[in-house]
């Protein structure tokens, strides 16, 4: 992971504000190429903000490199072809058809006034089929349920066919079968060499990743393999030991732990520092 050409994205001394409040505090992070990294942590940990910084859509201090290039020096369209970002709750494109929404993912590949090429159409079809949204390609986004919309927006991000894919809460509103489909999609992308970074509230799903970044209070507390007991301990810790990670059918699962008696909130200095 320390070898430069094995790193897809490198963040150095990243700080970012929302309004006047600093929500990310001097974060250093190195994301492995061709691997799936999940970012987990409690509400307000700064996960989505970090993902936005990595995507280049939020002002910040510090440096981000994308595939060995300083991101702020990359032309917008070049960056957009190399890196796709799926945000949460951003859309208002109710009047656009499913096909048109997915086709927006091809904008970085198209000349300013050129129409979609055969390659663009094939990429959109493949993306819509992979999220099972192909059947409603002519319907307006506003006519779909929350889960269906999410699958279309996921297809939009997949249609970019970028080498790095950042997803913020991609499983929002998805039912269990489509969550399982999403796992298949991510594993297929990683098998092709794509770097996937996801912010997930579903710890069970996050533990399927190759690596887990554990965040709390705007800092990275740990970054390690998803199967390691040390990682599991730190995940449990940032969630105030309200979950317990256990193995079942060769998968790691996070079980909720009921609060049997009042417990003291965890103090920040009790959280183990990033080794």
């Amino acid at each position: 992971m320390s070898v430069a050409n094995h790193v897809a994205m490198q963040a150095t001394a990243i700080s970012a504000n929302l309004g006047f409040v600093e929500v990310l505090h001097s974060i250093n992070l190195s994301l492995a190429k061709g691997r799936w990294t999940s970012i987990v942590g409690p509400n307000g940990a700064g996960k989505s903000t970090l993902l936005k910084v990595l995507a280049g859509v939020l002002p910040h201090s510090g440096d981000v490199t994308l595939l060995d290039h300083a991101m702020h020096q990359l032309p917008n369209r070049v960056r957009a072809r190399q890196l796709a970002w799926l945000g949460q709750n951003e859309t208002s494109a109710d009047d656009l058809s499913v096909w048109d929404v997915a086709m927006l993912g091809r904008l970085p590949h198209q000349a300013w006034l050129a129409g979609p090429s055969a390659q663009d159409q094939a990429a959109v079809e493949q993306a819509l089929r992979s999220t099972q949204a192909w059947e409603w390609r002519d319907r307006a986004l506003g006519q779909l349920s929350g889960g269906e919309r999410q699958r279309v927006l996921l297809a939009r991000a997949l249609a970019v066919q970028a080498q790095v894919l950042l997803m913020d809460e991609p499983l929002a509103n998805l039912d269990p079968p489509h969550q399982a489909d999403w796992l298949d999609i991510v594993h297929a992308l990683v098998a092709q060499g794509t770097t996937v970074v996801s912010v997930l509230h579903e710890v069970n799903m996050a533990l399927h990743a190759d690596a887990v970044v554990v965040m709390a209070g705007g800092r990275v507390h740990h970054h390690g393999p998803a199967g390691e007991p040390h990682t599991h301990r730190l995940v449990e810790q940032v969630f105030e030991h309200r979950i317990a990670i256990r193995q079942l059918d060769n998968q790691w699962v996070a079980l909720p732990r009921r609060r049997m008696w009042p417990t003291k909130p965890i103090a920040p200095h009790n959280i183990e520092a990033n080794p």
Partner: protein
Amino acid sequence: MRQRVVWLVWSGVVSAVVLIGLGVCVGSTGFEDLLSPLLNPQMDPVQTAVAQQIVWDIRLPRTLGAWTAGALLGLAGAVAQGLFRNPLADPYLLGSASGASLGVAMALAAMGGGAGMLGSSVSDSASANLVVSVFSSSLWVRVGLTGAAFCGALLAVLLTLALSRGVGHTLRLLLAGVVVGVVLGAMTHLVLLMSPDSLQAMQAFILGSTAFVGWTSTLLMAGVWSLCVVAAWLLARVLDGLSLGDATAISLGLPVAAMRGTLVAVLALATGTAVAQTGLIAFVGLAAPHLVRSLVNTTYGNLMLLASLAGGTLLMAADILARGLIAPQELPVGVLTAVLGGGYLLWLMHRGPNRVAGANP
């Protein structure tokens, strides 16, 4: 979907042609067939000459003027709704129409003092005692008034945006638009009070009227419309991208800030040009894009063209109605669109909370 768009374009064109035919035949005496003497000049040469004069000098420029003004407002509405990701955005509700009106009033007050420069070119009978009239047919007066209206509209949109601190919050944006509209409207009245000569002419103008639109205004609006529609069409992809949110648009490599600035200029130019020729005509900019959206779900490139066609057709139809409804009196068309458009807005509000409140996060 594509077939539907083509079908809608054709219906917009055909209905415009039919309404132009109807528009040249409706006057203060109600409907009179002027097309027959024009098409058969050998039957009665005198009647043909009279018909030609009425149609060519008065009704045709006015009817086409109504179409181009409506097209400009429809385009401005579509741009505003895409730019601010807000289904209730329109030139009126954003305060830009009031800003344009203030620009015109201030230009009139200023030019009224500087008689030498423009006075000689004025040949307008409606208010011949004025040095420069709001209904003047001189090209330079029209261009000057349009420029002033553009500046006013641009200023108003920027003021609304500054007061609402961005476009993300529907309620704040609309409240800011209302505040800017009311304050600039009051300032317009203040300017008029201080230059009483132009008060009466401006009164008709503030109510919104196509009655005095001549060839100069019509051609000016047609020229600006062509420019705006091409510019908006070139930037339509930015609006498509913005419909997924600012951050997604930026992640797609779109130069959002620069393009947003250009689109605000297009919005102000379209609004300013329409307002400078026809006064304050409410709700056409709001209704036209919604009418199109209720018929087809399409990208902004198509929406802006279709909203233009729909706006043109709506205002032309309203103009014909305004002429004939209480003939021989004529209703200012702005009053009619305000009543019809207000009803449409109410219907839109009650139709379904998702459509109107949907953009409010």
